[in-house]
């Protein structure tokens, strides 16, 4: 097939739409008196050609699974995205003037409150990773013809996550993915480092395995042609590196410094708009997007249940990280929608058990945690898959901005962090997650599972797959005993009382390895005739406040929390928050209080005061006081 140049009328219509998008962007940002019109203007032709010539989608049904996907990675250009959907007829033109208002869904940066937004953007450099997840899903899971377009700014090309995504896209031959770089030269506070050095952008994209075209980003014909070639290219993703001017079409503002994020001055807006209007030749010629091939089934939203109960016996010894791998594999057996990914730690997180059983549904993301989280988010959009991404818990710190944005994106992604806490031992502090609970607790949409044995881990995985929002499962390295019967039922926000008697004098709350330390302390103290109650919270967020309060009351208000985590933001503070206003309760917290070190797991649990020994001592102290 050879390229046919669009007819003159079409080209003119695309130019006209570009200018209309400019006018809308100016009007929107003038109305809100904030926003980024100059960043919109550089992308006007790109948006016009994408939305009214290249992309295939149903303008009245933006979330249709067969539609081409579009991600505005340079989220601050939101006004032009809203303008494009106004031109496409999905939103009313008058609504545009409510940009950034408290009662409008047209927010400062795009969020999925809008049907045409799959992932929130506005933290730069994250769009391409999500686009990779969508493109991977399109090509390998849905095996469908929809394509994925991601519009990026030049400033965000300084973000490493962009290059993680670039490497990923070429490694997996995502020829259904097009990255458009709007190289408008200027950043927020000064010129972007490569300015208009188009060759360097080209070399970088090519070196990272992209089929690359450098184009004049304001020439609609060139754009039509390059995007057509992108579609014909097999085996490689395409990058369109578009040389543009920030504020293009705005006299006296185009390519000038100090116009980032500034609306047009009220006294100049009219003149600028009139100038743009004068370039529009046929204001009423409507262009309609092409419709998609309907080759994608609607998302299946039925809950996914384990086909069989956990196969562990009480007393069996196994690590929760291994139980995660087994559980994930079983979830994969239960539904073809379950997919998994890892950051080259699959033999440590045990996601390799899933990979062995379901190789076609496993994505190796290599050592690029930010991109892994973005890919997981991308895979989960439009409910196409239920994705589980695993790595050492510590390394989710690397992707915390992406996780934060996933909450704004209303994503249902599931993240699993192994090797938490000092109990990993000799590898030392760089590998120990001691702040992950604090991180994930501060994500508003997050459910935090912290299972303590094989049975509860398996149920946590099952619950996570069916729980909205972000789910985080914290798993541990050491082998611990199975403490629950295979038939035990688990619920989000429901704690388990693992040991109790009528004479309990203190409530101990532990999770993971510290729950087992608490059980050991229980047995030791029992020999001395001291009874303690032991609680497994199961989920740290939400925390089962009523069970904890009831236990605390039953044990004379004495509570001890013990956690393999820093003191700030973890289990202890979650318990304090839950107890809130309860009078007469005294809480002691055992947690890691400084940067730890290498050593044997048990030695470290002792050294940092979270072992059975420390718990026994703490219990005795509560009586001494």
């Amino acid at each position, binding site marked *: 097939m050879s390229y046919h140049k669009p007819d003159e009328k079409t080209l003119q219509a695309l130019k006209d739409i570009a200018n209309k998008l400019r006018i809308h962007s100016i009007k929107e940002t003038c109305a809100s008196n*904030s926003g980024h019109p100059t960043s919109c203007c550089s992308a006007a032709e790109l948006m016009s050609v994408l939305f009214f010539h290249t992309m295939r989608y149903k303008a009245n049904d933006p979330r249709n699974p067969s539609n081409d996907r579009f991600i505005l990675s340079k989220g601050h250009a939101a006004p032009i995205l809203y303008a494009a959907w106004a031109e496409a007829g999905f939103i009313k033109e008058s609504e545009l003037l409510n940009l*950034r*208002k*408290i009662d409008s869904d047209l*927010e*400062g*940066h795009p969020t999925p409150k809008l049907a045409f937004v799959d992932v929130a953007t*506005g*933290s730069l450099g994250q769009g391409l990773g999500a686009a990779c997840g969508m493109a991977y899903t399109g090509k390998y899971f849905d095996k469908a013809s929809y394509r994925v377009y991601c519009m990026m700014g030049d*400033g965000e090309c*300084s*973000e*490493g996550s*962009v290059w*993680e995504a670039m490497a990923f896209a070429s490694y997996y031959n995502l020829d259904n993915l097009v990255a458009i770089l709007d190289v408008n030269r200027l950043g*927020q*506070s*000064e010129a*972007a480092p490569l300015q208009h050095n188009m060759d360097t952008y080209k*070399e970088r994209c090519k070196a990272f395995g992209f089929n690359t075209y450098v184009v004049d980003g304001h020439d609609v014909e060139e754009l039509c042609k390059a995007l057509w070639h992108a579609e014909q290219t097999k085996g490689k993703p395409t990058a369109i590196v578009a040389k543009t001017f920030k504020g293009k079409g705005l006299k006296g503002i185009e390519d000038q410094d100090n116009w980032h994020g500034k609306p047009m001055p009220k006294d100049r807006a009219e003149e600028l708009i009139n100038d743009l209007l004068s370039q529009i030749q046929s204001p009423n010629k409507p262009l309609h997007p092409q419709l998609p091939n309907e080759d994608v089934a609607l998302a299946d939203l039925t809950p996914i249940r384990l086909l069989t109960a956990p196969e562990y016996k009480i007393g069996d010894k196994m690590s929760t990280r291994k139980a995660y791998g087994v559980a994930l594999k079983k979830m994969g057996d239960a539904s073809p929608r379950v997919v998994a990914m890892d950051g*080259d*730690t*699959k*033999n*440590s997180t045990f996601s390799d058990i899933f990979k062995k059983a379901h190789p076609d549904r496993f994505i190796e993301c*290599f*050592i*690029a945690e930010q*991109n892994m989280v973005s890919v997981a988010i991308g895979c989960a959009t439009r409910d196409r898959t239920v994705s589980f991404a695993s790595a050492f818990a510590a390394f989710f*710190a690397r992707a915390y*901005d992406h996780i*934060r*944005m996933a909450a704004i994106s209303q994503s249902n992604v599931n993240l699993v962090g192994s090797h938490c806490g000092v109990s990993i031992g*000799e*590898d*030392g*502090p*760089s590998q120990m997650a001691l*702040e992950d609970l*604090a991180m994930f607790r*501060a994500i508003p*949409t997050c459910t935090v599972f912290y299972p303590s044995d094989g049975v509860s881990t398996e149920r946590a995985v099952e619950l996570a797959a069916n729980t909205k929002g972000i789910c985080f499962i914290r798993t541990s390295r050491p082998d611990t005993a199975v403490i629950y019967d295979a038939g035990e039922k688990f619920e989000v926000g429901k704690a388990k009382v693992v040991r109790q008697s009528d004479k309990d004098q203190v409530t101990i709350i532990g999770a993971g390895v510290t729950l087992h330390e608490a059980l050991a302390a229980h047995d030791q103290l029992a020999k001395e005739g001291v009874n303690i109650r032991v609680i497994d919270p199961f989920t740290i967020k939400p925390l089962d406040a009523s069970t904890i309060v009831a236990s605390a009351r039953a044990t004379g208000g004495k509570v001890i929390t013990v956690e393999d985590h*820093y003191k*700030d*933001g*973890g289990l202890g*503070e979650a318990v*304090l928050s839950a107890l*809130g*206003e309860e009078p007469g309760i005294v*809480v002691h*917290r*055992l947690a890691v209080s*400084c*940067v730890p*070190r*290498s050593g044997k797991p048990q030695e*470290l649990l002792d*050294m940092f*005061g979270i072992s059975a020994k420390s718990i026994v001592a703490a219990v005795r102290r509560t009586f001494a006081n």
Partner: protein
Amino acid sequence: MFKKHIIFQILYIIVGPLCPASLKRFVFYKVPPQLQGSYLSMEDYHKPDQQTVQALRNIANRLRINSIKATTAVGNGHPTSCCSVAEIMSVLFFHTMKYRPDDHKNPNNDRFILSKGHAAPVLYSVWVEIGFLKESELMSMCQVDSTLEGHPTPKQQFVDVATGSLGQGLGVACGMAYTAKYFDKSSYHVYCLLGDGEMSEGAVWEAMAFASYYQLDNLLAILDINRLGQSDPAPLQHHVEKYQRRCEAFGWHAIIVDGHSVEELCKAMSQPRHQPTAIIAKTIKGKGIPVAEDKMGWHGKVLSKDMAESVMRDIQSRILNSNKRMYPASPIEDAPPVSLRNVRMPSAPNYKPGEKIATCKAYGMAVAKLGRYNERVVAMDVDTKNFTCSEIFKNEHPNRFIECYSAEQNMVSVATGCAARERNIVFASGLATFFTRAYDQLRMAAISDSNINLCGSHCGLSDGEDGPAHMGLEDMAIFRAIPTATIFYPSDAVSTEKAVELAANTKGVCYVRTTRPETAIIYNSNEDFHVGQAKVVCQSKEDQVTVIGAGMTLHEALAAAEQLKKERIHIRVIDPFTIKPLDAKTIIDHVRSTRGRVITVEDHYYEGGLGEAVCSAIVNEPGFTFQRLAVAHVPRSGKMSDLFKIYGIDRDSIAQLVRKMLSSSANAK
């Protein structure tokens, strides 16, 4: 619990001095004077003689033997990842680098960063070879009483920054190289050894772009392309030409070598450098261990005792007799002396009570002022300098400002590198929420004992119309969970200036949280501020409730106090100044005098912020009634005042909660 804490403190005090570094019980061999300065300069490279080559090979093999021996002895570690770099380490430490082996922190020394930190045993083996460490110490690495940890940490003098979270070393190396070239204007070079697995980390490419942009020709990266990752081959396998192309596209000079050829390594490392240089070394993982060479399934696996012995015998047999001892060349002594002690503001803050100024602007002015009298105060930003106001510093001290562009991870690494060996007092700023991007780097900065200072502007809902993507609502939670962190949350320009001054002199990671909207000055210029000391901003004898706020919410609390006063309800208002450490004593004392009633109000999510910090501080105080106001959901775009109302952290919400608290306690009576 406190006792327990003290016991560990004591334990550390006892165990600490036993560590070899602090005892200095070794006889370091001194570099003979005849050898000093006699090393080849880069311009007149001669192939090293055969004796030298053999000696370097021998060292490489001894490094292998010790790496295998140590990992087998302790049953832990990554011997195969050490074996691939044996020749590289030998050539670097005994041929290329210039340093004083008996004076690790000498500012003139070339720097070395082992970015692939899991190869720690080979680094420790180098220092055994040099004579600084005893072999017996190496054989007990990773044990609870050893300062040789599983991954390098600055518990060892020869380690500047902790590594082990992959892809972070090069950014730190960039900070050191920038310091050498532009701040110290000295001739020391910076060498960074990376693994191929970590080349997938975006942070590496941020650093690559930074190094070429700033023409760091004193920076050399060695890429150990041993093909195999942890669970799979690395994505580019042995395609060294692809690595070369990527490095070149990012503005580096890239040389492909056989990483096991001492001659090729010597030559490549001696080439004159006019831009940052990458040596792409094709190597074999497990080189020297026949069963493991280039084989999957050997990452992080130690050899059995029997296998180790046979392998070591085999390697030993390749060590040929050579009388030549290798000495590192001495560095050129041209790094200026630097003192970072007692950095003070030249004068008191110059603000008048009632004047309105944003704390983010006060930050920029304070750092600029501090820089006026302290040459080693440097600042950096991520293309947000017009928001964070660090441009005020830049305008005044352009030569001490580093624009890091939109690469937050790299900025934090560069900051850590600049602050290493106490060369600079570093202030790095960005929007508060984007420090989440660098949280792994911040976590590692704590393990590195780094003293970097960070400033996050535009915190919370007060960012308004830009929407949730730009609002820092979890920053206090993440910084509180950094064990070495001090968190300043100043509420006016005077306290911001004091916070900057204190941060410059406070060890550990300091974080200053600033706000975008203008707020009134509430402190006199001569007010004294201390870390961990709260201020009571508004009080009377009739106070019935204590309200704790910071930044915008402190001003909302003050407005609520005015409002309530009309109803003859008096409240005490406390400004904590630092959230970590929190002034528990002042808070408890004042809450007691308001009959145990306390409210916190914060522009942050409920979890991990001011409220939980106060909760932790007052836990177990009998008779306290504690209520919290914070942001409970992902917020949205809108005017700040509307958002404060919607999410319930404005003056009306505070006043209402105060009334409610008082009426319910009245009912209780």
